[in-house]
């Protein structure tokens, strides 16, 4: 699972470049997120628009990142694809995270 991070104002935008956060990549994902979020910022926004699939281990890893950032910072999510949305909805994790339907306009990547 490759990730890239960009600081935009006070928001650290992390984009997932891989298409799965699953048992095979969950530990690596958590470690990499820990490294990237060392950057000073007020909020962390994780762009998941390329992630087609998250399993229970992947979800657990995302929850772990949320917990590691708390209480000073929040992990916000954006661009959940349908299967990922389903996993968040069924496990009621959608109530725990701030989820944006798509990337906020001012934080989108300039193409």
């Amino acid at each position, binding site marked *: 699972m490759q990730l890239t991070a960009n600081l935009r104002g006070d928001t650290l935008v992390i984009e997932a470049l891989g298409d799965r956060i699953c048992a095979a990549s969950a530990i690596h994902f958590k470690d990499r997120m820990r490294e990237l979020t060392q950057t000073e910022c007020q909020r962390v926004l994780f762009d998941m628009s390329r992630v087609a699939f998250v*399993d*229970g281990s992947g979800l657990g890893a995302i929850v*772990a990142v949320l917990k590691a950032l708390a209480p000073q910072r929040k992990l916000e999510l954006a661009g959940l694809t349908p*299967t990922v949305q389903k996993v968040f909805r069924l496990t009621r994790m959608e109530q*725990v995270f701030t989820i944006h339907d798509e990337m906020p306009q001012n934080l989108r990547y300039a193409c």
Partner: protein
Amino acid sequence: MKDIPALPVRVEIRLESDHVAVREGLRHLFTSPPLCNLSPDLRGSTEIVLAEVVNNIVEHAYLYDKGFIDISLIYAYPTLSFEIVDTGLPMPSTKLPAGDLVALDRSGELPEGGFGWFLIRNLARGLEYRRKSSRNILAFWMDAR
């Protein structure tokens, strides 16, 4: 529904019990017929169930020794049925886990795991487990309507 096969389709695949092999095996299975032709919603649900079932086998049944995971599926519309066989350790008390969702506690700790069987029980139908000749046999089906 892009493509409903007129005749039942049977697919068998053998995976090694490691997470990377599983990821690649499932990627192949879900990008090949007949699963690649399912509606995106059903395909997503099926992938969630199968991934959780297989991850559990890797992490629990093959905790000490590695082995194979044999997946066979039969797609006879509207039923997509699966049988998954491994030769690892039996399920605790040779029963399927209850799969209760750990309570969310906003002021306390959020669960970082325990989602697997909850998701399986939510999405799969007709779950059956039996232990026979040192093998675990798990069957379930998905409703393709």
